[in-house]
């Protein structure tokens, strides 16, 4: 039998704290710590971790890193000055590259963190919790909890079908492969819409929304699951501390702040501790 997914309470708390921290600090250290912790958490998911989040996060992050120097016109240390290409700024500075890199790592960390939490959380328990406080939203929660894995399976199946018919998606240069893969976006979209309707129809066809519902008691959480509250609370405390003290602040322009800052280093250490402990407890 496979391992059970994690209880939603502590994981939602952990995710909330980590996401608030990711968006409230600018210093590279806590953001890098969050990215490393998120990858560790994803790799300990009960089901095989999805490469979709890693690849999607990496592509978005790299995109931001590459784009930032051309849409920002700040910084003192000029590395390269290109021709004028309105509306782009072709003067590239060290500060723009650093800001882009931190932004890119942040996007990567958030994407992987969301993927890790979705892979870990027990969707059924989460749906039950949502249904208790907002019955109408449970349908949406159920759909979103199931749609992503279903879409992931469908995208794999669609690629497989296409390749088994001879579509050259796995050979040739990357742009040839990308061109061959582009038409598959449409069937994936169609499949996603059909899946969404199927889930809603199945829930209704099985009586969801007919009236007050009962719930079979869940088995109690084991010790490890209960201990997950500790990193969850720690993540929230770290996020609150960052907001209140402003210790994760960092300025990129016109000159980079010094990297060595005690407050930011402590935030990074505690964030890594929270996510690392969650990954260890969930392994």
């Amino acid at each position, binding site marked *: 039998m496979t391992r059970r997914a994690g209880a939603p309470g502590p994981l939602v708390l952990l995710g909330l704290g980590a996401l608030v921290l990711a968006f409230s600090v600018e210093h590279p250290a806590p953001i890098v710590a969050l990215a490393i912790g998120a990858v560790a958490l994803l790799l300990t998911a009960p089901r095989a971790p999805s490469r979709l989040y890693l690849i999607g996060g990496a592509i978005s992050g790299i995109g931001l890193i590459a784009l930032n120097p051309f849409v920002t016109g700040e910084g003192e240390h000029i590395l390269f000055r290109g021709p004028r290409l309105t509306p782009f700024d072709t003067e590239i500075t060290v500060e723009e590259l650093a800001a882009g890199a931190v932004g890119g790592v942040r996007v990567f960390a958030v994407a992987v963190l969301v993927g890790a939490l979705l892979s870990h959380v027990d969707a059924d328990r989460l749906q039950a919790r949502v249904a208790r406080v907002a019955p109408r939203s449970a349908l949406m929660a159920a759909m979103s909890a199931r749609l992503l894995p279903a879409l992931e399976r469908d995208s794999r199946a669609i690629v*497989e079908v*296409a390749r088994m018919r001879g579509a*050259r998606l796995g050979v040739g240069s990357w742009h040839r492969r990308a061109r061959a893969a582009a038409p598959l976006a449409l*069937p994936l979209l169609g499949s996603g819409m059909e899946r969404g309707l*199927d889930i809603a129809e199945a829930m209704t066809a099985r009586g969801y929304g007919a009236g007050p519902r*009962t719930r079979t*008691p869940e088995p109690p959480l084991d010790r490890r699951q209960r201990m997950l509250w500790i990193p969850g609370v720690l993540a929230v405390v770290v996020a609150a501390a960052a907001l209140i003290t402003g210790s994760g602040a960092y300025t990129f322009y016109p000159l980079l702040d010094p990297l060595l800052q005690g407050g930011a280093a402590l935030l990074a250490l505690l964030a890594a501790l929270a996510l690392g402990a969650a990954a260890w407890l969930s392994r």
Partner: protein
Amino acid sequence: MTVISARGIRFSYDESRPPALRGVDLDVAAGEVVLLRGPSGGGKTTLLRALGGLLPHFHGGAFGGEITVAGLDGRRSRPAEVSLRAPLLFQDVEAHAVMSDVERDVAFGAENAGVAPGEIRERVGGALAAVDAKHLAGRRIDELSGGERQRVALAGVLALEPQALLLDEPTSQLDDRSAARNLELVRRLAGERGLAVVISAHRVDRVEAIASRVVEIRDGRIGRGLDRDQGLPELARARRLGPEALRLSTVTIAHGERVVAERVHLALHAGSVLALSGPNGAGKSTLLRAIAGLHPVRAGSVRIEGREVAAAPPEDRVPALGYVGQDPGRHLLTESVRAEVELAPRYQSLPRRTRQDRVAWALSALGIDELADHHPLDLSTGQRQRVAIAAAISGRPRLLLLDEPTRGLDSDGRRRLGALLRALAADGMAAIVATHDSGVAGLAADRWARLGGGRLTEQRGANRSPA
């Protein structure tokens, strides 16, 4: 006492498409089992959706007529209320599951009905035992085979203790033993509890034994009741074998920790069709995927035309290999049936004229010429299945692997598929068909093998049922 009453039911999904139901009248009494039969796309699933209170609430469209189900007005009551009294078991069991693990999913309906928590556990255990699925408790739904999912889905509707049951192809993925057991259970419940049961099925041979009445639905209209399935014709079996198409040497395959095939040997020659059977969850799909190079082999080798299958990327296995997995209708790639069937010849860079000939031939072979300009998502499950098979054979593979290809196919579709496989084999193609459909297997295959307990056992002798 009449439990289900439908009067003059008319329904169109949208104005651009012909009506799916054109004035259907149907009464089903308590204790009665009505078998709905008819061609794919004839309106069976739509009628079941209407009886289950889901039309027009979920699909829009124009609805007319009167439906009463277990005392509820089907048009004015909320679909969820109707569903608790007359639950619908979907044809696509993957769509039926709402929760992630077996016990929670079986309990879902009973929880919605407000059954006391203590009683739900009893009902879940009882329903799983009734469908011979108690051993699946604790498993994740997405780890189950199609047949296992079908049993769990049936347990889910039984746990509701409803007044009527609407079952859409409830045995399409079950082995013969499980199908007979579940249908006997339905017959017994109808008799003992006075359940009104409507079953839609293409495998009429399986269901007619328990049916009180057979109703034919075609082009959205109820036709006359039919007494017996015509069955599939026997075709000449003589064929000449060509060179070796496939060789499995001491192949061991695992699904997670579970070994599904151990030290398997198999050789298949051009012109031969092997029917692969085995109980639900035995690993037939995993074995087919391994042969196609889509699932890792733990030990041994899989060679197609002498070459290790996994040595080439999937796109380079074409046209030596064609593969149609389970539920292929969900993964059609284009905007029209014609374009779908043309994909494989297009990827092979065949001239336009040849492509057109291939498409016309494949559409005609599967009997879907009239659907050529339809969008695949507008088709029924059986029609989509035919499209997926047509799309595979249009590439003229030399080895064709089909996983449960008769799911959703009506008797015409099954007959065509059997005859097509025979014709393709006579033309030099080799095929492996994983199926519980002994009729089609008997029609098409010249070899039979059974997978179970990790062993692949060849069953010698012609025309042997693989059940």
